């Protein structure tokens, strides 16, 4: 790296900038759009300089959308709340079930162990639509249709495999003898799990939790089929902006900004854990 030529450095800078612009531009554009009215957005050519308005955010937060065709009720804040409840509920349940399961898969060799672990992973690569139709029929029978619990349950298809496989790797990296030493000192197996294994795998658990939170948050199709209006998350709720009088680009942009914010904040907060998690493997004795 030190002997890199000037041309190489310039090329690298240009390439990095291009990539950054390519990926960041849509986000920046959405942010700008969220402060414009529909008319300003649809103006051709688009302008970078405009008079910002908070009307979009106002409409979202107050729940009143004024369109040419009249006033429209929107439930965006409700959707945002649903997203939060559903995603955190799903991640909490998946952690509760997945972390002990990951530990079991990492530490104990049992009959069909690998098969079970792989089956759980296979949920990730089966198309969701495959299970949705039979699932919605079952849900109607069981009365789980349109309940928070029902959706949290089906979200396990997303969150559980992810947590299981990521956390399992972290547990496998911890020498079992550390737990053995703890158990010999007069502690039970359960204490060794909660006081030694879980804290040591903490960064990995945080990373897996964050990832599965993002995946749950971004899920669309499960909630679309299984939830009615008052249980829908933002991803489904955004459909409401396609109205009879046209597509409300400004509100869509504002809604996107608002719905990205929680995950972004969470990611920023969890960043240090993620970095710790990634470097755990490098310092193990």
């Amino acid at each position, binding site marked *: 790296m030190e002997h890199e030529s000037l041309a190489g450095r310039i090329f690298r800078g240009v390439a990095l900038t291009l990539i950054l612009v390519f990926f960041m531009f849509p986000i920046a554009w959405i942010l700008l759009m969220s402060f414009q009215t529909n008319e300003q957005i649809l103006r051709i050519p688009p302008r970078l300089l405009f008079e910002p308005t908070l009307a979009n955010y106002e409409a979202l937060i107050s729940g009143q959308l004024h369109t040419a065709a009249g006033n429209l009720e929107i439930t965006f804040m409700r959707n945002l709340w649903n997203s939060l409840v559903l995603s955190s509920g799903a991640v909490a349940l998946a952690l509760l079930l997945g972390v002990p399961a990951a530990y079991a898969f990492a530490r104990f*060799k049992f009959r069909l162990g690998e098969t079970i672990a792989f089956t759980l992973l296979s949920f990730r690569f089966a198309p969701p639509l495959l299970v949705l139709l039979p699932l919605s029929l079952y849900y109607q029978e069981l009365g789980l249709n349109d309940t928070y619990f029902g959706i949290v349950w089906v979200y396990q298809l997303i969150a559980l495999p992810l947590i299981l496989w990521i956390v399992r790797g972290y547990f496998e990296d911890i020498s079992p003898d550390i737990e*053995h*030493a703890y*158990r*010999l000192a*007069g502690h*039970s197996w359960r204490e060794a799990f909660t006081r030694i294994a879980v804290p040591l795998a903490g960064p990995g658990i945080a990373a897996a939790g964050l990832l599965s939170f993002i995946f749950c948050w971004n899920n669309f199709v499960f909630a679309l089929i299984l939830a009615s209006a008052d249980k829908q998350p933002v991803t489904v709720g955004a459909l409401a902006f396609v109205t009879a009088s046209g597509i409300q680009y400004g509100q869509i942009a504002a809604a996107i900004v608002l719905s990205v914010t929680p995950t972004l904040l969470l990611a920023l907060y969890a960043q240090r854990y993620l970095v710790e998690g990634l470097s755990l493997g490098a310092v193990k*004795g």
Partner: protein
Amino acid sequence: MAMLELRGIDKVYRSHGRPPVHAVRSLDMEVEKGEIVALLGSSGCGKTSTLRMIAGFESVTSGSIAVRGRRIDALPPARRKVAMAFEGYSLYPPLTVRENIAFALKSRQVSRSEVSRRVEAIARLVEIEDILENYPRVISGGQQQRVSLARALVRDADLYLLDEPMGQLEPQLRAVLRGRIKSLLAEREMTAIFVTHDQTEASALADRIAVMEDGVLQQFASEKELKERPANLFVASFIGEPPMNLLETEVKRADGGFRLSVGPEVAFYISGDGLDQTAQRALAAAPRVRVGIRPQRIAVGEGAVRVRIVSNQWLGDQSHVAGECAGHLLIAVVPNRVAARPGDVVPFALGPRHLNIFGADGVCIRHAEVS
């Protein structure tokens, strides 16, 4: 009552799709209170499996383990009252060295000042006082090993299990620590079992050595006895540096005794008087036996066996003289310099009374006389 009693221990590892591995076979062993025992053997001989079964991390496939007469093989590790130092150190990364050592004491009813007094005493013993406040990841492998050792020794346990306790230490420090640990164990009458593949370590630290090979306990005896009365060919060739010389011989009855001939020129006469009934019968039945003689028991420059010298090394305190005799390589260790060059023919003396005789199954028929 023995402190530790292993009865008919078998350990079979079964894994899916692979043939089962019989790691330990019908192992019987008794360790007395205050005894230091070494499990010695090459890697894969079952010594670590044995240690882990005593600690409770591996289940026994069959057999029983008792400590002070109390069966422990079904108890969880926490209730076995054993302390262990692991080969991989296994320190808790989030705790300092001091906390790591104190950890095991905290859950017991031990006062704060007593904990720190004991931690410091053991830290002094293994020379880690200056790194007590460091975290495990910033100290060297040798230091981690000493912390792990200290963490085991600081506890009050019925049994101390040490897995390769000094493998990572520098030779000088190792020698010092061996002495200190041995006197600590002796002073407190602690019963310890340690695993090693290093003979020097086994003989320096242990009262008795259990030699294991292929999952089978070959012999469990003091170092002196292992050297002088090896139970079988394996122990004879495994213990001692350089290893025992082994010669293939043909057995013939002669003059009320036996004539063991290596070749047309070399033969030993074993008189019948020096053999007990079983040995006599075994020798009479065997067409061929192997004889073994310790390199230290061979005299160079005298005797009837003519040896063509292959190498002659003066090690500063002893000579290792290797020569060829009737198709066998013989090594002699003598305390003085020997004036012989490779290619010279030099007489070696192999006294019949120094010969160990092993039957076809490897079991020792007759031991060398101890002079």
